């Protein structure tokens, strides 16, 4: 299955305007009506509630939302990284033709690292402190491909060069603690890319980095995505990061996607009241002598979900209908959806 290179069709989908004349490209990943609940003795947390989306090959999808919106959980379920005993998952997840939720533990292990890879916020916890960077990359390669040690090492070196780590040869034998934060993040990306995955999942990989380093890593990720033709799902709470890297954006609130569209549609012409309020309350050069617009109240309590629209209790324009019936995603414009009853009356 690893020879299923989509690169031959993918560039067409993205760059050519003649969409009608080319064969329909099937999505790289498809999530359908995903529900994730965490059960404990005290409560059931409804972390993800009916999330559906498609990711096309070579697309970068950013999932943005506040803490507890379900963005990380959605992503982790795509790699089946949630604790199986406490988690109840329903729905369908398909990545590159594999039905992720139906695979055996053995099969999913084979998929992880080879076709789907993930990078995390904290490279210091994602990398193993007692092995060198080179060893961790070669281990990943040899777990999935029958290559010799020296061949794996040669590829590890290539990978470090790919992620622009200076003096890569000596860094192969460095331990994670010997690298700076930015280099560690690059090393983690190298490990994740070691088997040329089709889908890269990124969970706030630049949040812990300094501003001058964050932009380096974002520029690098975008270059690598393009060079390797990967699909990327990138979870972040930072609108600036999403604006920098996303093709498409999904906005999540209380475990639901409330808005979905191209980066420009969502960030420049937001439709959902939550997206609008979130953008307005983000500090970016507002007048210093005036209050910032805020979203009143606190994020939704996922142990006790309210009926109707989950955002209604904090929404500035909600009507009685919103408290009774949950809205579903409807088209605002072409390829731009929002889940709000009042979408047509808002301007």
């Amino acid at each position, binding site marked *: 299955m690893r020879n299923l290179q989509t690169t031959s069709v993918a560039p067409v989908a993205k760059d050519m305007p003649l969409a009608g004349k080319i064969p329909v490209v099937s999505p790289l990943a498809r999530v359908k009506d995903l529900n994730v609940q965490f059960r404990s003795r005290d409560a059931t947390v409804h972390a993800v509630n009916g999330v559906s989306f498609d990711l096309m090959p070579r697309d970068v999808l950013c999932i943005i939302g506040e803490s507890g919106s379900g963005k990380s959980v959605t992503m982790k379920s795509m790699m089946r990284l949630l604790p199986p005993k406490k988690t109840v998952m329903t729905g369908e997840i398909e990545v590159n033709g594999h039905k992720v939720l139906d695979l055996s533990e053995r099969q999913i292990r084979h998929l992880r690292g080879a076709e789907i890879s993930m990078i995390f916020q904290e490279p210091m916890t994602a990398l193993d402190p007692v092995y060198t960077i080179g060893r961790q990359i070669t281990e990943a390669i040899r777990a999935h491909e029958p290559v010799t040690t020296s061949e794996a090492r040669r590829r590890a070196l290539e990978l470090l060069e790919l992620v622009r780590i200076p003096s890569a040869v000596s860094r192969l034998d460095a331990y994670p603690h010997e690298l700076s*934060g930015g280099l560690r993040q690059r090393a983690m990306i190298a490990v994740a890319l070691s088997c040329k995955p089709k889908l890269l999942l990124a969970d706030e990989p630049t949040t812990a980095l300094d501003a*001058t380093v964050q932009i380096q890593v974002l520029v690098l990720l975008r270059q690598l995505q393009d060079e390797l033709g990967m699909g990327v799902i990138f979870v972040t709470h930072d609108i600036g990061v999403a604006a920098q890297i996303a093709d498409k954006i999904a906005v999540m609130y209380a475990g639901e996607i409330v808005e979905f569209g191209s980066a420009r549609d969502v960030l420049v012409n937001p439709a959902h009241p939550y997206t609008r309020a979130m953008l307005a*309350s983000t*500090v970016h*050069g507002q007048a210093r002598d005036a209050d910032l617009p805020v*979203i009143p109240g606190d*994020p939704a309590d996922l142990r006790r979900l309210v009926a109707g629209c989950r955002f209604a209790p904090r929404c500035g324009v909600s009507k009685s209908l919103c408290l009774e019936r949950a809205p579903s995603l409807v088209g605002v414009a072409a390829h731009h959806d929002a889940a709000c009853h009042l979408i047509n009356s808002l301007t």
Partner: protein
Amino acid sequence: MFLVDTTSTATDERDVGGAAQPMLIVRDLKKHFAVRGAAVRSTARVHAVDGVSFTVAKGETLGVVGESGCGKSTLGKLLMHLIDADSGELIFDGGAIGTRDMPLTQLRRNLQMVFQDSSSSLNPRLSIETSIAYGPRVHGASASEAKAKARDLLVRVGLRPDIFAGRYPHELSGGQKQRVNIARALALDPRMIILDESVSALDKSVEAQVLNLLRRLREDLRLTYIFISHDLNVVQYISDRVLVMYMGKIVEIGAVDEIYRRPRHPYTKALLRSRLSSSPDERIKLAPLTGDPPNPINPPPGCRFRARCPHARDLCATAEPVLEDGATGRKVACHFAEELADA
């Protein structure tokens, strides 16, 4: 909007009171940490804060920005006397701290701090009310006075006492906990508060709520803030002046509008250019700086930024630039600030 009257402070800085008397004067503050685990007799030292001098005027908000390891949090802790400085002088409203003019107990009444982690700052075993009343009790208030004060402060920070007074920290959201921390910092009626990444861990919608609260409190209680943050947008919104640190040194300080409009130090320029726009049409194609902030252990001679500076020359390797006075209270520590003004 604020006064930075350096001439008059030079003549009568020991005077208490008066608008011209800065709230805080910091002179040549230094803190080096010995590196643990290094070889015996090692001389490795982290130059966390290395000769920092500035003043904070009454009623103003001084933003402190810089990347991790630049010493901004150490600076906050030194000002608060949570750790002792190696050398340097601190003068709070005319009284040298640690002398009879401004003993530590009196400083702590006047100067308080709010930290980033709202959970670990609160005692999990104390109710909100008890936590807030703790400071006043220690400083001699009766139980009923302290309780009344706590309830009063809960109202001020936007939490209803009838709902929240008896609750424990684990029953609150992050934003609510940070409001409690602010109330607790206010419990001794301080004149100045150091906010160390106080809104950084909050979600954006909650961050805006807390920033509005901080602005209102500043006005109502005539507070002076030192606002330490890595978030350049937030600092721009809340601050009157801004101080930019790099490896334990101030590289630039001045009015926030001037610095954001026309940064003079190459590091400030790069830092501001690394800010991400919220519009996908304004993407950054090329990172303004390469490399990471260097290790602050035993920094090399000369300018500490030179290894990453696109304009570095021979002089930068030998001579350390000093923080030079510019027009309108702006100071820049760069040999070529004048030359690069239009770059």
